[in-house]
């Protein structure tokens, strides 16, 4: 993890606006610009593959993190309890093999996104390193007017 951290370059100045939540993927994930509905399908486990060879791996911040609260409100439109019940139900219905993997800090989320093929997470936009890809939502990057995750 430390070795990986040493390779991390400076954060992106263009998106370095604290408060906006960036959707982040590995550079090899085939996603540049997604609609909010597409993002919702990914985070709700309704879309589980980027393509036939690459499964989506969800990394979600632990409860109480500000980023998680933004995502619960805007993407899931659920309370914390509803979010937990949703994923228990999803796995019980055999619609997903497991729920999202919980990460405990922005850095852990970004480290794992860089390490796991097909992974996607959300993080404070000011902390995203250059070697990871920030996905545009409805054509907008964090910091731009109308960006939905704030």
């Amino acid at each position, binding site marked *: *993890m430390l*070795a*990986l*951290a*040493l*390779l*991390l*370059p*400076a*954060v992106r100045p263009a998106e370095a606006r604290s408060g906006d939540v960036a959707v982040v993927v*590995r*550079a*090899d994930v085939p996603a540049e610009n997604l*609609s909010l*509905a597409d993002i*919702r*399908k990914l985070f709700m486990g*309704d*879309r*589980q*593959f980027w*393509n*036939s060879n690459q*499964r989506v*791996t969800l990394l979600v911040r*632990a409860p*109480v*993190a*500000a980023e998680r609260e933004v995502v619960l409100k805007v993407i899931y*439109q659920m*309370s*914390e*309890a*509803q979010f*937990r*019940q949703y994923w*228990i*139900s999803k*796995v*019980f*219905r*055999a619609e997903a*093999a*497991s729920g999202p*993997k919980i990460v*405990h*800090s*922005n*850095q852990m989320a970004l480290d*794992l996104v*860089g*390490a*796991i*093929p*097909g*992974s996607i997470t959300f993080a*404070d936009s000011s*902390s995203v390193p*250059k*070697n990871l890809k920030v996905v545009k939502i409805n054509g907008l990057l964090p910091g731009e007017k109308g960006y939905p995750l704030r």
Partner: protein
Amino acid sequence: MRSYLPVVCVWCAASFAGVAAPALRAQEATSQSELIRALLERIDKLERRVSELESQAAPQPRAALPAPAPEPPREVVETIPASVLQIAGHQEHITAPGLRMSGFTDFNFSATDRQGDISGFNEGQFILHFTSPLTQKVTVFGEVSMTARRNAVTGASEFPVEVERAIVRFDQNDRLKISFGRYHTPINYWNTAFHHGLWLQTTTARPRMTQFGGVFIPNHFVGSLIEGALPAAGLNLNYNVGLGNGRGSLVGQAGDFGDNNNFRASLVNLFVKPDRFFGLRVGASAYRDKITLLGGREFREWITSGNIVWTKESPEFIAEFANVNHKPVDGGLSTNSQAWYVQAAYRLPGAANLWKPYYRYEHMRIPLADIPFQNFPPISGSVLGMRYDISQFVALKLEYRNQRTPGQPRMNGAFVQSSFTF
């Protein structure tokens, strides 16, 4: 029933007294949340500072940065927890399949004014659910139930174990998934939304049309399914196409150890979840089979059904309809039996959000000439209740039912259920 109502009241009061303590600790929990939030923010700040210091200590020209590798370096993979690797499809680093298990169960109290009913406590089903991702594309799912029953011959209590679902599924991608196994038949919403997890559903019991042990909808299906989801211009069209053993000679049971005739059951289930109306789901299904009853009489069966569901909780809305057509193979009267229900619930806002009042009306009509259903009395009526979520994984439900069966007096009943997942 009247003699039991004080017992119900006392029991409910005791239950609520037991759950009042967490409510009184709410303030403490809030301050803990604030503390955790502050600590997380502190961690994020420190992580950013460490990154800045490390990049200053070992500056690298941007052009020299290594491009992201298509696969993580082995040493990095080995530092990632096994559970992450498992969902990421790196099982080659793991020596055995990662089996995950969860469970559901419930305890109930019931009191009714129906003659012959014995009021009191009873234990619900004890459900274990298994999930095991074998590779990135192959997953095994299982559901086992243990149900408290009285032996029909000896009268002794017993807990027979039943494999409710056992499925192995190959996911090619989101559009195509192929599986084999024993399923809950995907021809209505409730049967595949809540399975045996009573904690997941709002009410204490299933609607009569999809009741376990009932016959109206064949609850289980043994065979193969092809399923997937297509974007369909934002409609998100989901499909299930299945071929398998149909009903057994006892029409409420599936053909677990083989079909009882040479006619396979087939089904098609379609539903959409439009992007534009997040939370809405609209579906329709068709199911075809040939039934061979114990006496050897055979019937063609066509089931058509439809449902509309608003999956959010404020409000929650579920409506389903099904028509079952039976036509004797040897000629004779074709019959149509219908069942439908409408259920509405609303999770209260603000400080009352642990409470969720609900109401359901259901209706069933089975003609006397419908031979395969002749021993299944239709029940119609209302269910009115309140769900209270004691914690995120435990629910207490209080329910009043007013139902009637043709030719019998109307039944009034009070039901209390504590259901949970673990």
